[in-house]
């Protein structure tokens, strides 16, 4: 009784068998039904996210947010969607029509594709790919391609520049992100997301907090949200790679970004927060779905919290942060985790968990000390006296100089 989704699925299957369809066709139809259900649920959630975003940003900024349309402004996103749908579709001069139209489709489709592998509960999941973690990386790679397409097809200098910077940022931050993803794979001995959740009797957040933090930071950078949003810096290059997009095409980019944030929340909760795990989730799978979405929304709130609290960081600071701090740090914690995993006894969960946690804390502390040393040497370098141009102090000195040079 705790699993209505599987019950409905079985009922549908029996219905199709009763119509005399062959087994292969039935599994095909069930797969199509599953895809449509997942995609529809996710898209409805996406529209709801627009409301969540606007209300929460308003609260962060000490104001109310939309509250005119419907109770608490809940009808606002529907009004937004209608507005976007009836806007005129403008094709900029010289734009490449096919690629220009393909880019927003790719932007939303790649986010939808991620939901195929996330386990919503112990029995409700799209598919348990044995390469689930790498699948997430692959889909991210395709979305990066979509951004270049958007920037190039717009026939606009600023869009192209924005697209290059966005892709440079996304591509750079993928390295520590994938390294941080390797840690749950090592801890769970499998790349399948369902197996990773099944292995989290203790949440991986408590065993490997440092990779979780690194994954959170790099995911925020991958999303292109503040403080890493220089790529859509409104005051600098207007809107980056989606300058020339209007109406629903822009809506797809915007909705795709919000949905991507929620999906990232779902991925982090799957990899580090135990996914659908919670009290009673094994016996009542529907509770698992509930826990999963609570965790995903909590992380979405954390991502928004970071966005509305921190200023934008400069591109050279951002790239230095990635290549000179996050990449060596994530490599270090990966090496430490890998070696410790073989040294610590797997039989005793408490010792294993505490040992890993201690290692994370030690690596974090060493990193902080190194940062302090670095800051000290930076301060010394900045405080050094440098030659400063001196203005001429008297008119007499100037006139004597000019007369001596002319004579």
């Amino acid at each position, binding site marked *: 009784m705790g699993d209505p989704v599987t019950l409905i699925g079985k009922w549908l299957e029996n219905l199709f068998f009763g119509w005399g369809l062959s087994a*292969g066709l039935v599994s095909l139809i069930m797969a199509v039904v599953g895809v449509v259900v997942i995609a529809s649920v996710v898209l409805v959630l996406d529209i709801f996210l627009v409301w969540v975003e606007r209300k929460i940003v308003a609260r962060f900024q000490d104001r109310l947010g939309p509250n005119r349309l419907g109770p608490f402004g809940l009808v606002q996103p529907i009004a937004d969607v209608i507005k976007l749908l009836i806007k005129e579709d403008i094709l900029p001069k010289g734009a*490449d029509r096919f*690629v220009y139209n393909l880019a927003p489709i790719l932007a939303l489709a790649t986010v939808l594709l991620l939901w195929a592998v996330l386990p919503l509960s112990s029995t409700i999941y799209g598919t348990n*790919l*044995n*390469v689930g973690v*790498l*699948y997430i*990386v*692959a889909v*991210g*790679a*395709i979305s*990066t*391609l979509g951004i*270049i*397409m958007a920037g*190039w097809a717009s026939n606009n200098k600023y869009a*192209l520049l924005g697209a*290059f910077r966005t*892709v440079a940022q996304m*591509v750079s931050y*993928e390295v520590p992100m994938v390294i941080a993803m390797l840690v749950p794979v090592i801890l769970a001995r499998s*790349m399948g997301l369902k197996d990773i959740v099944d292995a989290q009797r203790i949440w991986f957040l408590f065993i490997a907090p440092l990779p979780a933090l690194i994954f959170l930071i790099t995911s925020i950078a991958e999303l292109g949200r503040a403080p890493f949003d220089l790529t859509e810096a409104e005051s600098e290059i207007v809107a980056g790679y989606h300058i020339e997009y209007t109406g629903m095409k822009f809506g797809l980019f915007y909705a795709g970004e919000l949905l991507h944030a929620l999906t990232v929340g779902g991925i982090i909760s799957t990899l580090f927060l135990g996914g659908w795990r919670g009290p009673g989730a094994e016996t009542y799978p529907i509770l698992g779905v509930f826990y999963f979405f609570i965790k995903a929304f909590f992380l979405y709130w954390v991502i928004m919290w970071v966005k509305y609290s921190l200023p934008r960081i400069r591109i050279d600071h951002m790239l230095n942060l990635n290549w000179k701090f996050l990449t060596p740090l994530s490599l270090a914690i990966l090496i430490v985790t890998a070696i410790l995993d073989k040294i610590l006894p797997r039989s005793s969960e408490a010792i294993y968990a505490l040992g890993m946690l201690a290692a994370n804390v030690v690596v974090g502390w060493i990193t902080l000390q190194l940062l302090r040393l670095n800051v000290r040497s930076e301060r010394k370098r900045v405080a050094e006296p440098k030659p400063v141009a001196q203005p001429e102090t008297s008119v007499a000195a100037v006139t004597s100089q000019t007369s001596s040079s002319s004579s």
Partner: protein
Amino acid sequence: MTALQVIFLITAVGTLGSALMVVITRNLVHAALWLVAALFGVAVIFVQLNAGFLAIAQVVIYIGAIAILMIFAIMLTRRVAQDAGPQTNPNWAWAFLVAAVLFGGLTWLLSAWSGFSTPMPEISSRADPLRQLGQALVSPNAYVLPFEVASVLLVTALIGAIMIAWDRKSG
């Protein structure tokens, strides 16, 4: 005609068609995008051969890194995306002859091969190719030496590319 064969035919035609469009199209960035389609077709063929990991690795590395690198390289070096030169080479007749002879020779060689009619050995459903690959990569009687040499090769490529592509003075 099983479903797998139908899917394979569609994928093969798609891949070959995309590869053909890479060389035919006039717009260079379009050619890069057709190449992405061809690489994706190869990934789908890997899936049909039960090599899921290789398919995903193909998408991650080829489409996610190499295709982006190529597009960057195109935009770095070409001022104009349209290729203004003629599409065909004056020697195209000779090239066609050589290609036809090669194709005929390969077909003749392969027609005598018995591998087309022997059934493929069954992979037991219990075997996990991913884990076996992982073990093989680090096991001393398997591929650990190529594994380590691969890392040295990657570092060499990195050093070489930085030396060529980046000049400290011009920055």
